[in-house]
């Protein structure tokens, strides 16, 4: 934690700069979303901007840039890893279904699935 007054004044400038950046980036997000690159592309751009904004907030407003306490960094690192596991593994599990698993139980639409004859 910064102690001296001079430090704090320096911080203040950083706060205003971050504010400006956040405001601009918000506009950019909206603007970019009006274009359609591709499904993945749009998601990637939007999330990249959001991630950048979030790291600005974390670094400057939440003082992580000046944070030295190892305990905080450890907690955040562990949390980050588990966050990624939580985000990725469920969807990976669902996408690793064996062949022929169908995501429906009714054949409401159209022709029925083929099946072999009963006799050999």
């Amino acid at each position: 934690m910064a102690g001296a007054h001079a430090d704090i004044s320096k911080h203040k400038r950083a706060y205003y700069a971050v504010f400006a950046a956040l405001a601009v980036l918000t506009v950019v997000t909206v603007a970019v979303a009006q274009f359609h690159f591709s499904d993945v592309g749009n998601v990637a751009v939007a999330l990249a901007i959001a991630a950048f904004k979030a790291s600005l907030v974390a670094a400057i407003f939440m003082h992580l840039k000046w944070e030295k306490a190892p305990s905080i960094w450890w907690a955040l690192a562990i949390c980050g890893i588990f966050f990624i596991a939580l985000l990725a593994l469920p969807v990976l599990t669902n996408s690793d279904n064996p062949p022929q698993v169908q995501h429906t139980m009714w054949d409401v639409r159209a022709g029925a699935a083929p099946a072999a004859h009963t006799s050999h």
Partner: protein
Amino acid sequence: MTEAHHHHDDHHHHPELGWWRKYVFSTDHKVIGVQYTVTALLFLLFGFTLVMIMRWQLAYPGKPIPLIGGLLGKTLANDGTLLPEGYNALGAMHGTIMVFLGIVPLIVGGFGNYVMPLQIGAPDMAFPKLNMASYWVYFCGGMVMLLSFFAPGGAANSGWTSYAPLSVVATQGQTWWLFGMVLLITSSLLGSINFIVTIIQLRAKGLDFFKLPFFVWSQFVTAFLLLLAFPPLEAAGALQLMDRLAGTSFFMPEGLVVSGIVQPYTGGGSPLLWQHLFWFLAHPEVYVLILPAMGMVAEVIANNTRKPLWGYRLMVYSVIFLGFMSFIVWAHHMFITGMGTRISAFFATTTMIISIPSVIILTALVISLYRSSIRYNVPMLFALAFLPMFAIGGLTGLPLGLPAADIQLHDTYYVIGHFHYVVAPGTIFAAFAGIYHWYPKVTGRTMNPALGKIHFVLSFIFINVVFMPMFFQGMAGVSRRLFDQTFYQHGLDVQGWTQLSSWGAWMLGLSQVPFIMNFFMSLRAGRKVSDNPWEATTLEWAAPSPPPHGNFATVPVVYRGPYEYSVPGQKKDFFPQHLAKAEA
């Protein structure tokens, strides 16, 4: 202005505290620890009672329950005979109560709160008011769970796992269950923050991390598990509440037809989403059930072998690694849901990896016995019994972790046997060891050793009579959560084992009588003992028994590791952490 000054003021108020503030809404970690312990023990007894009722139906299906059958009420029983919905409600509540209201509050809320700050030489927890809040939120959660028995349709009856869609279309008790869980989760979160901060910030001078007693380490890792694994279940609980109350379809797929009626859900949800979120919590949760138990056992073993723990550092690394890995094995509970080869291989691999640190910890504890001088007192008996019992439970986890073997064993009594061996003769025995071990610290008196030994021998025999037959049942293919297994030929053929298991459970219940008597009678009649009756080395024994407000007469300073027993050249066979020099 300064902090010392500020708190000084506070400190001087305390002698005037009224009875309520001192014993009920107390912020003293010791009072809170005792509150947790007593509440949790009562819940354990209650959860056990539920299962003893279920065991009647299992052994003698369709026969009226003797003695208490008439008291069960219309939603659970009919003329004293248990109903299927009653059985399911008792089962779900047994699991929930044992895990969330019994064991965790006992070994984390109770032992953690009482012992951990003492062991690190702290005057209290870092956030005493938050600590009080944790207990009372837990208490409210418990009350909600208890009251849910009186909800229309009875208590939650979809298993402690509350799998959707069953839980979404279930009776009102499920909503109560969800609210209760939200409270319990909140309580655990508050508690875990407090534990972590306390351990990081309030250690006595000289007590660096590798001088911490192993119990503190186990609480530290456990707190991280609670902190990071519980929130997803809170989120899942919110989603399920939405499904139940607001008609959303988070867990509801398209085209559900329940009892011939097309359901009003728009669909698009995934039943597996619930399972992922639930097991993301519930697998780390099972390590929450075991790590503090291992910690307690390690304390008792070190003390009663009169010898340093073998491989202390290795054990610490193992427990950290175990905690870390426990977050990425959860889907081993979901192998049979239609999982593919790659993902199942991934989760099976992490599951195999996680067994290694357990093996290391157990091996270290056993090697600690080598060339020691074992003192067979009651806590030690329970701690020693923990080892083979946990080994059985842990080893039977291995076939479950192999997806191909799990095809046959999943959701059979084999699973029930597996985890009861780790939680009942495992964790409960560790908790008994802890109770007998720290009772003198809390009360200044020991519990009666003769009654303690009777309690031990009977419990040890009968707990095996309860759970060993479950492996036979499971192998034969009997599914769990069956109101009446004799519907199946394979169930009928092993019914004898089921009956034996039931008798074991009731005898186990009887075997607790000496304990309950001992527990209460020793408060007055127990032998008065000194502050350090077990001649132990860790800091809690440096405080008076019972410790006063603020814990230590003089602020302790730590000079050495936690288990300096039988140090060569010393007159006494123990060398406490806080002594600068050995006593001549």
